[in-house]
């Protein structure tokens, strides 16, 4: 190599590598989907009745089953890490090598603003309630909406820092969808489900499309036939 390399381009491509196959998007989609569904289920009368019947039949320990939904998203995220490791080592990264990404994909500044958006959103909800302008259900929906705004901002921040327009777009779409939840007259559990399914949809589409592209590229590199 005799020509000075474009180091900014090298650094950018290295940072992109972790996100270039879409698997992180799918992992987040799974987390949001399971979290939203779990919270909706936990607050639904059907689940309460089922839990009650379990406790009558099997005793108080059966109440622990009610906590399963708390652990399921975390278990799914860790399980997905294992799947990602296999997919990457055997196919997606087999020819191009492995990278351990930097711990701080998101800058502290973005994290701080994201936290301010979350807390600020909830504070606005509580403030409006104290003025009597909204009811309690609105405040509970604001919890989920503020979560959606906060996560949306994080994605926009990541998109700008890594120069990945895909995340900027997803962040904006998700934030708008989260606002729709706030204005829809639904309960706490339903709002959680709507938020979870909304992000599941957006991230699944993003991750799926990106993964397909990465899979085809990896297939060409290894000489596999395309699907």
């Amino acid at each position, binding site marked *: *190599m*005799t*020509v*000075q*390399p474009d*180091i900014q381009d*090298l*650094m*950018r*491509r*290295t*940072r992109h*590598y972790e996100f270039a196959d879409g698997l992180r998007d799918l992992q987040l989609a799974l987390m949001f989907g399971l979290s939203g569904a779990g919270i909706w289920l936990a607050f639904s009368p059907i689940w309460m009745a089922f839990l009650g019947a379990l406790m009558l039949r099997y005793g108080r320990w059966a109440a622990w089953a009610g906590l399963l939904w708390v652990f399921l998203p975390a278990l799914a995220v860790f399980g997905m890490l294992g799947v990602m490791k296999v997919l990457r*080592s055997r196919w997606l*990264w087999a*020819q*191009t*090598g*492995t*990278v*351990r*990404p*930097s*711990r701080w994909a998101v800058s502290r500044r973005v994290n701080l603003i994201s936290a301010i958006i979350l807390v600020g959103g909830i504070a606005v909800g509580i403030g409006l309630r104290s003025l009597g302008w909204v009811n309690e259900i609105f405040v509970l929906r604001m919890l989920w909406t503020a979560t959606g705004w906060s996560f949306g901002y994080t994605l926009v921040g990541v998109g700008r820092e890594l120069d990945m327009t895909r995340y900027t777009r997803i962040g904006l779409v998700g934030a708008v969808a989260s606002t729709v939840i706030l204005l829809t007259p639904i309960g706490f559990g339903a709002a959680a489900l709507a938020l979870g399914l909304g992000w599941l949809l957006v991230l699944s589409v993003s991750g799926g499309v990106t993964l397909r592209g990465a899979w085809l590229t990896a297939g060409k590199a290894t000489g596999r036939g395309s699907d």
Partner: protein
Amino acid sequence: MDPIKEIGQVDRLIHEPARLAITAVLSACESADFAFLLHSTSLSKGNLSAHLSKLETGGYVSIRKSFKGKYPHTTCALTTTGRRAFERYQRQQMALARHLGSDRRE
């Protein structure tokens, strides 16, 4: 110090194009394996090995050798010294670029 005079002080271990590419890649991650460095820098295997050895001798890169099944697997990471050296190099280059840019405007 005058950016022009700093040219003489530039870190020659990093400044060499191939080693600059390697440190740039490693600065953007916790660690990368040999295959990724090969793919990113487009160096030959021998060339990459030689430059990594120089960086390791200079204390800028740590190299860990293991096996993935039957195949050897080499993982490289910038040391703290290496990261500081690369950041210092980047600052020098930016200062020089700003200095030259202001000279041109005058």
